[in-house]
């Protein structure tokens, strides 16, 4: 009897001791981008009982992968609606896997949108365009939420920049997002250049774009790629720059 009381006492004492430690550790985990998934009724509703229990027990990744394989099969059947639903679950379960956000956005903004545009069952062009733009928006949404969950990594910023550039033809936003990507550790070197290129297509921001490109040019030969030279030359002509301030002509020959 005494022993039982002693054991309970120890458990309560240890419990009280560990409570703040666990809370702090959980906060630290969340701060470092771990444990971002909330196990609540909402999640359980979305992915069902079995998936919820499996995810809860530390097999969240496997559940997401299983759903991903299903999404792959759905893609083979061009079931865009089902794919959308599955990718919503997948990204909820694994918010830190860039691949899932990227693939989801790709399927929506690049694949589904094209399928909608070429949809033989929809004779009216206006409605096809509308559907296409809806898919663009869904892709954009995936990437924006992906960025919210992964603010520390450049990949999704790049993907969003690409989406703005290729689908929305919005060079300003594209430039903005390439710049954001470039500011993060591990960003590839071309992000800075691409940001500047995109800016060079924006009306009214030629001077700013020129300054950025020129700065890159001044860094040396690694940055003096053909496209960079071409854009510099284009801007120099558009801005009507005096000859002494322009980059050497011989670069022209290389560009040609």
């Amino acid at each position, binding site marked *: 009897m005494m022993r039982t009381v002693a054991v309970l006492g120890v458990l*309560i004492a240890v419990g009280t001791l560990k409570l703040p430690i666990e809370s702090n550790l959980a906060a630290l985990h969340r701060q470092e981008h*771990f444990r971002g998934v909330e196990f609540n009724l909402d999640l359980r509703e979305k992915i069902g009982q079995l998936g919820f229990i499996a995810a809860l027990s530390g097999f969240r990744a496997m559940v997401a*992968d299983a759903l991903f394989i299903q999404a792959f099969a759905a893609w083979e059947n061009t079931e865009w609606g089902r794919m959308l639903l599955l990718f919503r679950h997948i990204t909820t379960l694994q918010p830190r896997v860039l691949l899932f956000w990227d693939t989801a956005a790709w399927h929506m903004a690049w694949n589904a949108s094209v399928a909608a545009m070429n949809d033989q069952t929809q004779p009216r062009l206006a409605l096809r365009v509308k559907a296409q733009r809806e898919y663009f928006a869904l892709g954009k949404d995936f990437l924006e939420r992906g960025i919210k969950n992964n603010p520390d990594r450049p990949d999704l910023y790049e993907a969003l920049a690409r989406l703005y550039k290729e689908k929305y033809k919005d060079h300003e936003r594209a430039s903005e997002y390439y710049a954001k990507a470039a500011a993060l550790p591990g960003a590839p070197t071309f992000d800075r250049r691409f940001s500047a290129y995109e800016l060079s297509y924006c009306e009214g921001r030629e001077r700013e774009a020129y300054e950025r490109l020129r700065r890159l040019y001044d860094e040396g030969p690694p940055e003096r790629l053909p496209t960079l030279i071409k854009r510099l030359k284009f801007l120099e002509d558009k801005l009507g720059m005096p000859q002494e301030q322009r980059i050497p002509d011989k670069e022209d020959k290389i560009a040609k």
Partner: protein
Amino acid sequence: MTDAEHASTLQPFNASTSAKRYRPFSFSRIYAITINTVTELTRLKVFYVLLIFALLLIGSSIFMAQFSFQQEFQILKDVSLGAISLFTSLLAIVATARLLPQDIEDRTVYTILAKPVPRLEYVLGKISGVLLLLAISTVVMGAAFLLVLYTREQAVMHATLRQMSGAPPDQVADAMRTIRSSAFNIDIFPGIVIIYLKACLLAALTLFVSTFATSNIFTIVVMAFIYFIGHLQATARDYWLQEHSSGLVTRVFLAVVALFFPDLQAFNLVDDIVAGTAISLAVFAKTAVLGVFYTVIYTLLAAFVFYGKEL
């Protein structure tokens, strides 16, 4: 020579110095029980079934070639690490649940404790045996996983080299680097260590439960319950610590869960590690220390209850 004749030629040795031989704490005593426990557990059928299942799961990831290599590597890593996690958690519970009850039922515990072996050392020896077995299993499965990952990585790299045979060298280098970085991530190692520590915690907790449980099934059912609730403890704890206007019964229930159950979600870091989240030394060290702390506490509690147990 008959038995009787032979026997009387035996000399009792050092009977007078035997009083000096007893040492209050002896690693070699604990070690003898540890090794014995490992041998005993490797004879369990369930050990082999689980191990083969885990290895099969890891090996099956080879058949994921239909996806892009990033997707394939993602699935391979998730499945393998999930298998390691599942195996170690299950084995920790199932193997430990029967350790003490089996010895008590078979009465081998009498022969051991009738020797000058303190009960604490007996418990330490038993749990060390389980932890050692779990460590060996983790290393074996980890090695199998790395082998499969390496094999697939090499295969993808060779296929890509062939495809890019006309491309400029820096592009090829870039591609190789992308493949390598999406395959192997050094942070997987601390992730596996955390998985192991979670299994250690479960083993120690199972040992504690088995000291007052009435049967093996009881222990396992209780541990299944604790496993489930332990994964919800963080949610319960957050809910309780925030000021919610919930009823008294709910608040008491949440308090009980928060106080008595370990936060098992703290040890589920490997999914995010595979996703590319870097694990800092601070995070790893704090999580590891928590795991070790729980393991030690539960083991001591088990020893304490066992100390007073009527055999």
